[in-house]
């Protein structure tokens, strides 16, 4: 493996790890944060007939998870192209 190739691979991997960390931060915030631990402080905010924490625990987190996975896939597939790593 040439040095430039190695450097490019390193950059690709750290970009991936960074993206994973961002994704998982959002993942944890909506489910464990809004849906669970922060719920008592969010009681005042309502989504329809539900308080925000309840809604995130039973509905909102799932929608966010779906968006997150597609966001990750889209970003990674672009990253593959940028680094010329497409299959």
């Amino acid at each position, binding site marked *: 493996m040439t040095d430039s190739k190695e450097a490019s*691979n390193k950059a*690709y*991997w750290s970009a*991936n*790890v960074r*993206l*994973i960390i961002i*994704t*998982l931060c959002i*993942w944890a915030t909506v*489910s*464990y944060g809004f*849906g*669970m*631990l922060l*719920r*008592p402080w969010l009681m005042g905010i309502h*989504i*329809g*007939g*539900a*308080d925000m*924490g*309840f*809604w995130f*625990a*039973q*509905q909102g*987190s*799932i*929608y966010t*998870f*779906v968006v*997150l*996975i*597609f966001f*990750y*896939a889209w970003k*990674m*597939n672009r990253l*593959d192209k940028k680094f010329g*790593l*497409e*299959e």
Partner: protein
Amino acid sequence: MSQFMINMLFVAGSFAIYTWIAIWARAKSTREFYIAGGEVHPVMNGMATAADWLSAASFISVAGLISVGYVNSSFILGWTGGYVLLATLLAPYLRRFGKYTVPDFVGSRYDSKTARLVAVVCLIMISLTYVIGQMTGAGVAFARFLEVSSTMGLIISAVVVFFYAVLGGMKGVTYTQVAQYIVLILAFTIPAIYLSLQMTGHFLPQVGFVGDVAGTSEPLLHKLNAVVRDLGFQDYTADVENKWNMFLFTLTLMVGTAGLPHVIIRFFTVPKISDARWSAGWALVFIALFYTTAPPLAGMARLNLLDAIYPGETSEDSLVYAERPEWFEKWELTGLLTFEDKNNDGRIQYYNDKNVEFNETTAVERGWAGNELTINNDILVLALPEIGNMPGWIVGLMAAGGIAAALSTASGLLLAISSAVSHDLIKNTLFPSISDKAEMLAARISMVGAILIATWLGINPPGFAAQTVALAFGMAASSIFPTLMMGIFFKRINAKGAVAGMSIGALFTICYIFMYLGWFFIPGTNTFPNTPEFWIMGISPLSIGCIGALINFIVAISVSYATEEPSEEIQKMVESVRYP
């Protein structure tokens, strides 16, 4: 046409489709048998994954489980959130690796037969626990809807699975799962839409859930809270005190979900890494259709059932037993509904008699002498079409849907078991020199063996069969997930570290579960009573898996750094998995 004939038609029709797919999708090589040739479209794989994932328990029991209220949100979060972990931390890289089974990755990455064998043992323990529930679930669905004994139903199901799984392997399983997903999602969402229209006037249950009760300006959840409170139950949206345990339980379900072998191997079947990423998204879309419908269904069905028992307000008199509706009598026969007239007034009092304060006040005032109605949680889904006066074809659809949910998950699990036996034990450990043709035969024979064992265990369920959540998710979280993740993200982890991590993580988890649920699940042998005051640091045995995972990480890293670095070759392999 009688209801029995309608149910029969739906079930037989769906079985005809599965059989046709079995004949069409015969596997011709081990590559087709193990990973469907690696040619499955990402959307198709998403659907198959959803069917793989949504089990008999999801279909029949989840709505009942979460109808307790906010406190059981862990199941909803856990069984969907795991896919984010799977999509970002495992699926693409395992697809890149391009092997056939989960132990295959472990064995090659750590270049160790021991690691491979430990992974095989964990996989079989997880999948076997899981599959027994599916077989009994299929039997129950048959018994409820088709008036055959559950043993007979179980055997019929096994024969159908036998057909497409032995003939088609992963290829047959994949395409039948696609068909099964369509059947099960229609069967689950149509009654939910029907109920939502009845109760809230909204077509989408997800909207009706946060909307108002039809014809009033009172939010549905508000009404639900009021009704259950009137009967001495905790508010539906009431917050949970032990958030720590709720947090750990949810995390265990999420990490366990990402570590379940039968789900992971589905991502080996798509053509490219980018497909594996998209496919995880599609899988969650199809799963989300189910899991965003389940909470509204649970809430509405509970309110609907309470409305049936208290036809007026909850403060007015309840249903007279002699005037009970037909569905009530029917479900009494199954033992899922039981009535005992404790105060001899001929009416059905249903309330929370474990609420001491309520017993001393309201119950005394109203002349109630204890709760008179025992409702099995499964009733909420099973009896829904009848309680809601829905047309007969919906009942037939639900019969086919319940069976589809059980069969699709069972076949995925059986495939995970049989490929671990034929590929990892027979081909890669015992007889490495056998030809592709011989391995294919071994794979088919392993599948037959797995079906026979699962059927036998389904008919004679052992004590651990009821502990799927504790055992399968705890094991998957503490053994499989960390080992796979470290294999990709930490180059420094070697075979010794992986073996030590997996074994100690899994053993710790199992021992903690045994301490509270009985050693080897033998009743009465538990060290401590399974109640919150005896849980160490407030952690329930169901929530221990993520702590087991943490222990796995710590042990694997410590042992690896104390021993030699993995070979140059292995490090190169890890590199190659990271870059497409």
